């Protein structure tokens, strides 16, 4: 056997999460990810994936970067630094957005939480966090705003799945149970969870209901243990990056380094909605932001490639890096490239995301993927591949 996908082992410079000891004690298989040594799986990718779909999973996301931007001009600074309209975000709400380069390419995709009128928390991908921090510092110059890297002091754990609300609700004061229940998607509130001061956000990356809990790094272990104890009776299990990846893929969510990178604009990724070209400043004047000119010239233009969802019709899944081809044609006539792919645990068939040339991007188009020298038939389907059942 030789593993034809990337072999993942810890690098000597990888940072450890505040929960590293917990992962080792749980027997986790650890992997290098974004400069951190993080759990790939604890027991079984499939069991962890299914637990999140059917009950709940507990993820350590302490590798994510947390950057606070605060000050009287924090909102204006972020409107300049990011493609979104952060001034328009209400206190207590959050927004999915991006930080782009001058040429409109994506440096990172972000979730920004507005914690106060003058206080924002920017959450960046682990591998991009140093760059995002440096760019925010640079782009906030000239504004009355302070950028503080809080990654080292902050732990982030996510409770995801249909039982997440019950589990988090069981760990807050009786008066706060309703607060947890009423917390809207992409909203956050500061609460004591298991006796620990936490920022509780109803966000996630799994396609399920769930919460992300930001706590001081020193209290991460206590929180982790208490969430596990509270959740285990209803089926919560610790879940690793492997399950996180298959969950987000089913949910059609992009992963930086796969669907997004510095050669990609938000429009190609089908995420043009996050780009707010019509932002205005406090006086109502058009507001320039980093990347605006390049993005404005691309809006409405046909991108060179389009991100699509592929359903595999055979058994062999397409994987990241495989070529998308026209069935039966010369295999070197490549019309696209797979960015993520896996056998879907929930759906039972292979799924993938791929960039293809626009003329082959219509739903229902039958294409093929060159899976290690042999064509596998695929068809373009709408994303997300999986949508959770709506219960309320």
């Amino acid at each position, binding site marked *: *056997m*030789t593993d034809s*996908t990337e072999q993942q082992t810890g690098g000597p410079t990888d940072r450890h999460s505040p929960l590293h000891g917990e992962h080792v004690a749980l027997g986790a298989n650890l992997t290098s990810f974004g400069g951190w040594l993080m759990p790939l799986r604890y027991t079984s*990718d499939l069991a962890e994936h299914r637990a999140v779909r059917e009950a709940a999973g507990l993820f350590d996301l302490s590798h994510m970067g947390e950057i606070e931007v605060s000050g009287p001009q924090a909102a204006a600074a972020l409107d300049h630094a990011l493609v979104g309209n952060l001034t328009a975000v209400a206190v207590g709400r959050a927004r999915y957005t991006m930080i782009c380069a001058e040429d409109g390419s994506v440096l990172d995709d972000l979730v920004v939480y507005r914690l106060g009128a003058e206080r924002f928390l920017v959450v960046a991908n682990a591998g991009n966090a140093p760059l995002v921090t440096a760019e925010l510092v640079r782009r906030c110059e000239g504004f009355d705003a302070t950028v503080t890297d809080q990654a080292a002091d902050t732990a982030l754990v996510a409770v995801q799945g249909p039982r997440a609300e019950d589990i988090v609700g069981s760990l807050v004061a009786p008066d706060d149970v309703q607060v947890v229940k009423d917390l809207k998607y992409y909203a956050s509130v500061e609460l004591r969870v298991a006796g620990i001061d936490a920022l509780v956000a109803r966000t996630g990356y799994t396609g399920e209901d769930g919460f992300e809990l930001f706590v001081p790094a020193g209290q991460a272990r206590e929180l982790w243990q208490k969430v596990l104890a509270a959740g285990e009776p209803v089926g919560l299990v610790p879940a690793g990056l492997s399950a996180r990846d298959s969950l987000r893929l089913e949910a059609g969510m992009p992963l930086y380094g796969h669907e997004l990178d510095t050669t990609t604009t938000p429009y190609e990724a089908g995420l043009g909605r996050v780009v707010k070209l019509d932002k205005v400043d406090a006086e109502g004047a058009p507001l320039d932001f980093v990347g605006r000119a390049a993005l404005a010239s691309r809006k409405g233009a046909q991108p060179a490639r389009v991100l699509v969802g592929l359903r595999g019709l055979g058994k*062999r899944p397409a994987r990241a890096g495989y070529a998308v081809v026209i069935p039966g044609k010369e295999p070197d006539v490549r019309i696209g490239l797979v960015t993520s792919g896996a*056998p879907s645990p929930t759906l039972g068939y292979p799924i993938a995301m791929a960039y293809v040339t626009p003329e082959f991007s219509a739903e229902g188009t039958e294409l093929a993927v060159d899976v290690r020298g042999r064509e596998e038939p695929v068809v373009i389907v709408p994303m997300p591949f999986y949508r959770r059942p709506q219960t309320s």
Partner: protein
Amino acid sequence: MADFPADLQYTAEHEWLDASTPAVVGITSTAAEALGDIVYLELPEVGATVTAGAVIGEVESTKSVSELYSPVTGTVAEVNQAAIDDPSLVNAEPFAGGWLIKVDVTETGPVLTADEYSALVGG
């Protein structure tokens, strides 16, 4: 510490070989654990000729895929339909119920002892 059956032979590509007649081929517990949950097996058909050191199939997990190399040259006598139907057998019992193929062997390629294989994988 991994415990590899002493009565089997091993390859550096993480296959095991039971040199019975016919010989039995599978993948080691180390390989199965590295792959994670195995969800799909592609194996040669009965009667196919296999060559020591050549790719004869694929083992897919949710996370990755590995090619399967034949440790022997010969003719496939049987494939493990139970493992094809339920690939999780390979994770659960890599050295027993999760065997992959049986081969009428004409020649055996380079193999390792259990101790040598254990040393190779750092067990």
